């Protein structure tokens, strides 16, 4: 045992500086869009490429609209590789938001003019009565409602010395009765709906709900499946949405800190604000 401790000491500090400092090794956390860099034809092409309908267009080359929904993005990279001027990866982990609409961007085009993004309202700080209660520490109950296990794999990394969520006062708890926050991964399958509801009901008020990953937000690649019920917000009220497939551990940390009002919302699919 002492030899293990010696090894641990020899390895020294492994923990990321996040959230105080950016993590230089942060992976792509979201796709960012510069709608102005697209022609109408390219917008249509991007929509064809996108496997989950995160990029959609309506209208034709004359007039139309581009709608990008980062909640449905599974980070397949197809748009980034095909149209690198307009779609890029952002490595800033602050992708979580408090409302589903904040994950979408709309851009309209008309005769001769390429897509122009519509103004995005400034992040409206939703003051939740419950937030201040959890500022110091947060106990999290996780439920896998039908994931591919990618999201769990990242959640498990949060406990590793690299992310060490305890240093931030965040704890996973096995008992719903001690939990302040329900963190859900995966699309809600027909067979997990009841256990999920039971867990939620067993939690004391006030309680926060975090939808982690494209599946929990929008069904991800499994949207419309015969044996799935749908996205989490069809079943429970959701306070925080963190996109990704899976969201990286850094993005999950930001989402949890955002949930308790200890971090700011920075996300928007447009490059103008946010990163």
């Amino acid at each position, binding site marked *: 045992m002492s030899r293990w401790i010696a090894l641990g000491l020899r390895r020294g500090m492994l923990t990321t500086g996040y959230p105080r400092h950016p993590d230089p090794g942060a992976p792509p956390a979201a796709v960012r869009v510069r709608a102005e860099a697209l022609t109408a034809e390219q917008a249509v092409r991007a929509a064809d490429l996108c496997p989950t309908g995160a990029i959609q267009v309506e209208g034709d080359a004359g007039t139309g609209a581009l709608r990008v929904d980062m909640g449905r993005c599974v980070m397949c990279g197809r748009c980034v590789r095909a149209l690198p001027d307009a779609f890029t990866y952002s490595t800033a982990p602050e992708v979580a938001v408090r409302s589903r609409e904040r994950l979408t961007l709309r851009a309209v085009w008309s005769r001769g003019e390429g897509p122009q993004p519509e103004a995005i309202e400034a992040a409206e700080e939703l003051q939740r009565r419950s937030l201040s209660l959890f500022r110091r520490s947060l106990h999290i109950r996780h439920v896998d409602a039908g994931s591919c296990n990618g999201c769990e794999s990242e959640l498990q990394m*949060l406990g590793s010395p690299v992310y060490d969520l305890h240093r931030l006062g965040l704890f996973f708890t096995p008992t719903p009765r001690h939990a302040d926050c329900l963190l859900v991964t995966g699309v809600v399958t027909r067979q997990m709906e009841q256990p999920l509801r039971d867990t939620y009901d067993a939690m004391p008020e006030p309680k926060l709900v975090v939808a982690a990953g494209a599946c929990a937000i929008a069904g991800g690649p499994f949207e419309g499946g015969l044996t799935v019920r749908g996205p989490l917000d069809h079943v429970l009220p959701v306070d925080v949405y963190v996109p990704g497939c899976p969201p990286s551990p850094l993005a999950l940390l930001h989402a949890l800190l955002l949930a308790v009002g200890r971090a700011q919302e920075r996300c928007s699919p447009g490059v103008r604000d946010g990163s």
Partner: protein
Amino acid sequence: MSALRDLAAGLDMEPEPGAAGEMHATCSEERFAPRVAALAEGAILADLFATTGERRRRLSAVFEAAGDPGWLVLHCDLSSDSFTSVTPLVHSAAWYEREIREMHGLEPLGHPMPARLRLLDWPEGVPPMRAGPGAAARGEPSEPERVPVVRGRGVFQIPLGPVRSGPQESGEFLFNSGGEDLVAVSPLLGYKLRAVERLAEGRSPEEGLVLAERLAGVSAFANGLAYAQAVERSLGIRVGPRQRAARSLLNELERLHNHLGDIGRLAEATGLMVAAAQYAALKEEVLRAGADLTAHRYLRGALSIGGLSAPLPSSGLHGLRRALPGWHRRTERMRVLLEATGTFTDRLETTARLRARYAAAHNLVGPVGRSAAVDRDCRRDHPYAAYEELRFEVPVRPEGDAQARLAVRIEEVRQSLGILDQLLENGFDRERSGGGEPETARHEALGWCEGAGGQTLHWVELDADARIVRWRARPPAFVNWHVYSEACASGNNLTDHPVIEASFALSHAEFDR
């Protein structure tokens, strides 16, 4: 030369050539069960699945044989919704047939226990692989078919799950215990059934790839690669040598992060927290190396049909080259420490022991199989990607206990690092010959990959427009969950279960699908 061909000839079968290395044969309904049984005498039943569509019901059995790089696929068209069960003759067919029954509504007549495998809350008579859209909304869920419960003096049941205590996958276990000891453990699986394969039907192969890569997160690359190869082989597409080398590299990177993660979780289950932390930190480095190479920690989006979606960037390759010596040193140091930690090894020896005969009868795969003397590894047995040119050993142990499963994983980590060394030494800096003419398109083919959990076998059937008619995924966890109960029952305590679970490291997402 070909063991499968000889076997088929001995049964008076005349198989036709399929995609490269595959032989296909058909037989009548009456002869299917005896023929599968006869083939299973000399070959390994690697998969058994159904294809259903309008006016179409087909069973397909996939065989491989030791020492033969090929595959034999036996098809049989059914005239009704039932068929003679193979299970009384071939025990390893049991779960395949239960799956065919619940997912396709084809009844295996004479199956000793045809209960549902995963559908716990589902209307009767609406098989998800066959029902029309919106079917699930119709009808009341029927009573769940539960697994048998052990009765006896002092035996009680403890359910665990489906919601687990930590950030883990959902799944249920029913423990039958007489106090301390485990009399029986029944995994109740299927809570996460997403019917992924059904979702792919009618889509293009590239769209299907997005699903294949998301069938299971930690084996995203293995499932993606097996699927991509099935499509490529169906369409007669050849992959160039550089991309094949890159595929092997990413395959090993994924095997590595899984093995490190699994060893770490096993250490955690025994309370060895420093070891758990060190393995997790190393796993994180491997995930980051993967992101540097493919822009995704789990390597999603790296593949495309025909090769890779983008060449591996030299910055990522340099990073990997720099990291490898440290990974060698640290894994070796931790191996020595683990083996010297008595409190750790004591918990593993003889725990959840699988007898070799039982493991062989179930055609187990991956480290779970190899630690119980089942010597299978499709990187060696059916070389794909660049494995023909790579040197590596496949560790096999006879004991079948948690200690052996750990030993196999530890050695596989070493082998993976060795393969990465070789690939970086000579894989990417020069163009190699190879590739060649495209093969004949067959419209259906197998694809395979040795993922961290073991043999990952996919089957794809495409229509004339190259749309997906049928995609069948048989990931390793589907095979290995079959023996979980049996392994738990041999003289273990309730408190051993976390160790048992971690030593098997079976994916729920892969099983439930």
